[in-house]
């Protein structure tokens, strides 16, 4: 009798793969909009044409630019004037410390942000000055000279005080770019910082109250509390998160989430940090997976040999 097993196997595999293709790749392709990354080039923003001078930039940041009226710059000895929840009550969200902004964010983005925050952040649908909807960060109108030169100086200054981009850790990138709106419970991160270990419950509760106050401010500023990102690497995928951060409007037109202006390098670090929270066992998975595969292949070979031996007498 002809052995029909190969053709049966082909039929079974064909229908299984067809079903898989239809319910997974094909269905997801239909259900989810595909957005291509622009490699964090921020092509819509004007290029910086002037060569900046860090010293003059420093003077502007500390002086006429009035940055330090709201922003802390720990690296330049300017600590935060208020606790985060107080700052959020005033501005909606805690203005970031600018110490490492030059390393984490794109230079073109920073330049545009200084001049026209709502434009750089892509939240002009929310903040329209003509309708009296002012963005909490006031744009820089110039200190009397060439505004483009002044902005270039300020960006250069921020880059000069920042640590080297190579030294930015995944946690720093995440906390700086995402962490003032998003908590990451599994990494003990709240919008006002890492929750310390308190000896007394009273102190722990006092910290929680500050977090809740902060969250109240951000809720009214953003419309809802931005989600905790602990498991986002599993609930969204890498490609989605990356293109969403690059331009939130591309996926979700009208969203209150601003463009953060991270560099491609910082984005990779943010993703790395999200994996460190939501997919902590990925290295162990690769290691164990390899060993298990070797084991089951050996098992299958022995099973095959056993079958051959047993069946020798049956034919």
């Amino acid at each position, binding site marked *: *009798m002809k052995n*029909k*097993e190969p053709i*049966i*196997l082909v039929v*079974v595999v064909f*229908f*299984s793969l*067809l*079903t*898989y293709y*239809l*319910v*997974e790749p*094909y*269905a997801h392709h*239909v*259900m989810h909009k595909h957005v291509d990354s622009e490699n964090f080039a921020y092509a819509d923003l004007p290029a910086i044409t002037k060569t900046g001078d860090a010293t003059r930039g420093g003077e502007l940041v500390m002086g006429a630019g009035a940055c330090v009226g709201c922003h802390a710059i720990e690296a330049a000895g300017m600590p935060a004037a208020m606790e985060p929840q107080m700052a959020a009550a005033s501005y909606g969200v805690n203005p970031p410390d600018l110490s490492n902004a030059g390393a984490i964010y794109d230079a073109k983005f920073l330049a545009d942000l200084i001049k026209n925050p709502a434009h750089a952040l892509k939240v002009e649908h929310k903040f329209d000055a003509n309708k009296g909807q002012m963005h909490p960060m006031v744009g820089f109108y110039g200190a009397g000279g060439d505004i483009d030169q002044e902005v270039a100086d300020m960006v250069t200054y921020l880059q000069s005080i920042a640590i080297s981009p190579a030294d930015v850790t995944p946690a720093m990138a995440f906390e700086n770019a995402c962490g003032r709106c998003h908590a990451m419970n*599994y990494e003990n991160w709240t919008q006002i910082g890492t929750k310390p270990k308190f000896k007394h419950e009273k102190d722990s509760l006092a910290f929680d109250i500050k977090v809740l106050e902060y969250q109240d401010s951000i809720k009214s500023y953003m419309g809802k509390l931005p*989600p905790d990102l*602990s*498991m*986002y690497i*599993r*609930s*969204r*995928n890498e490609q989605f998160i990356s293109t969403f951060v690059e331009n939130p409007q591309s996926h979700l037109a009208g969203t209150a989430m601003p463009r953060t202006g991270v560099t491609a390098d910082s984005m990779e670090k943010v993703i790395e940090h999200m994996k460190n929270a*939501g997919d*902590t*066992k990925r290295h*162990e*998975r*690769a290691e*164990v*997976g390899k060993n*298990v*595969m070797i084991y*089951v*292949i050996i*098992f*299958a*070979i*022995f*099973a*095959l040999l*056993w*079958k051959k*031996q*047993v*069946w020798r*007498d*049956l*034919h």
Partner: protein
Amino acid sequence: MAHFTKATSVKDWLNQRLAVEKVEKVMASEYWIPKNINFLWAMGMVLVITFALLLVSGIFLLMYYVPTTEEAFYSVNYTIMREVDFGWLWRHVHGVAASVVFLIIYIHMFTGIYYGSYKKGREMIWISGMLLFIAFSTEAFSGYMLPWGQMSYWAGMVITNLFAGGSLHADFLVEWIRGDYVPAQAFLGRFFMLHVLLVPIAILGLIGLHFAALRIPHVNNQDGEEIDFDAESKKYLDGDKAGSKVMRFANDFMSKDMMVVGVYLIFFFYLVFYNYGFAMDPVNFDPADGLKTPAHIYPEWYFLWSYEILRPFNIDLGLALFGFAQVIFVFLPFLDRSPNTVPANRRGKAFAIWFWLMLVNMIVLTAMGKLPPEDPYSQVGLVAAIVFIAQWIALPIITSMEKKV
């Protein structure tokens, strides 16, 4: 009382009390299997192995899972995935096995339909198998509630809503099932109990019934040949192993079972480590939120075909046809009026077309069940659902006209 003598060995001691030799013969070495079968006959063993994987991984998960709406998501995604040694492995094995078990069940089912293994005394094998399918479906659905993610919550909402019976508005029944107006603590606690106790007990009992149902009619073979098991087994025991049409279950057929299991495990663990996403929906990694409906709500892939029979119609007709689709497979042995127990392709054109159309159409329904209910998917789904119903209505007619082959 039976007469006991001083045991000569441990085996003898056990034999006198438990008849272990007899049991071994009945269950394994003199449990006769026809030789003209192919690897599809190993799906039973593959299912046993997959069920064992589910049971063992489930036991480990049960040690750390917390069945409260406050803690469930955290206990799964933090405690089990991050804190417990190899917790991630148990979860991925459990999730992937829960999905793959249905693939094997469907292959097993369609094998049964193709070879007519539900006919001529084998009706109870089919019926107990379909009861197992229902029990596994309940087990899968109740398990899906437990991580208390967005898809758990909203699938729970949608499926329990079905019990309102459309225009009947039996909302009291929905509330009674949920123990609340919406899926909440009472709901989670109940489904947890179902998943870890009641349904597994039912499954174990049904597996026993399924095996017992096989005992008298014996396993079918790929030619629908009626074999004289007494004569053929005598031939085998007399030494003509090659000439006999039957073989021992152990080790003869079991060695082939194990060969198939070996290949299957390569496939299974490849999925566990490298391609688990299909079995662990990303949406369920967002914690349950009753105020935020996901953009797309769909069941796991193995429920999609019946979901699509519900969806294209108005609520009352949809529910009626959905109910029809749920139970109709159980009645297959009685709806198939043909005297033939041979592979579908040898039963004449009508049934051959019926079989392959049923298979393809269920794949179409499965695909449309996942896609959003928009044109052209809803039209394709509507046609496929009508074809499904029509096929079952046509079955007794075309099979009673079938010629004896």
